[in-house]
């Protein structure tokens, strides 16, 4: 893994601080420093909101399409099906996150068990 090439024991922590911690913490620090209230309805914030939403969905799609070893035991139809059933449960229950998780998890767990029998 290219991230860990320099020092195998410290590199993961360094990578976490440089590419995970600092890029997110900067916004919290900025909020403390910026005294005036920022308009949550400005075009810039709406743009950033869209970008952040697309990114999150994009990462979920990547995890599902290019699965890790643990997830690859679930066939692609089970992974996609879990998301579809989770979405159906979500809307059927007037946007319950809990229902989405239970329904989606049930599909993954059951289909991997079924597939491996």
């Amino acid at each position, binding site marked *: 893994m290219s991230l860990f090439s320099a020092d195998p024991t410290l590199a993961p922590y360094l990578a976490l601080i440089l590419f*995970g911690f600092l890029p997110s913490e900067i916004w919290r*620090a900025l909020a403390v420093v910026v005294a005036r209230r920022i308009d949550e309805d400005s075009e810039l914030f709406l743009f950033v909101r869209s970008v952040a939403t*697309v990114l999150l*969905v994009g990462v979920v799609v*990547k*995890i599902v399409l290019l699965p890790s070893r643990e997830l690859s035991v679930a066939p692609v139809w089970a*992974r996609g099906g879990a998301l579809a059933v989770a979405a159906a449960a979500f809307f059927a229950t007037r946007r319950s996150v809990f229902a989405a998780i239970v329904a989606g998890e049930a599909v*993954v767990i059951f289909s991997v068990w079924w597939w491996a029998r």
Partner: protein
Amino acid sequence: MAEAPGFDWSWRWFLEGVRQALTGPAFYVSISLMGVGSLARAAGFPVGAAVLSTILVWAGPGQLLFFGAVIAKTAPPAIALAVSLSSVRLLPMCLSVLPMLREKRTPLSVLLAASHFIAVTVWAESLRRLPDIERPARLPFFFGLAATCMALTALSTALGYWLMGSLPAPLGAGMMMLSPIYFLATTARSARSGADWLAMLFGAVLAPVMVTFVGGGFDLPALALVGGGGAWFAGYLARRES
């Protein structure tokens, strides 16, 4: 004015924050972030780094992006950019909670410490609970609530990490799907406008295209610009129409 310290500290209110966290929010956030531990393991990180990601980043989507992008062999600068973009929402969250915590003499260092604990769960609980509490009691209450959420989640991140190796295959796959489903659902839950739904749709449709055609680990920034820009522009046009 006689009061030298910048703020009052009440252990009673701190414990009240701990107690209220244990009535629900702390369990909710810790269970949902268990999958981050599993992701960290799949990305090849040690358990200490997984737990540290919860304590330092303390933003589920950012952690999901970070480990998910490492698994997908994304270039480090692109990872940092993606994490940062996903965390911009922390700015308005902090801006809406900090004025409730702040008193005239609250030191900057205390506000910085408080801001570190603000992420979606603590933010939502703060907006709900702080207005009913007298101002001097708010900071200890907040720290009690937030630290309990974080501590329990740090434990569950480690648990998710260790469980990953020893679970039967169906449960292991289930753990890996936990955070994708959770974050998709919370994003959909907080959707307020057509542009938000369009952004989710664009992400779902464009991501496979970008993964296929954009190499070098820069598919995420490309996706963000094209999809996010497109969703925002559609919303912009719709707002001008009305």
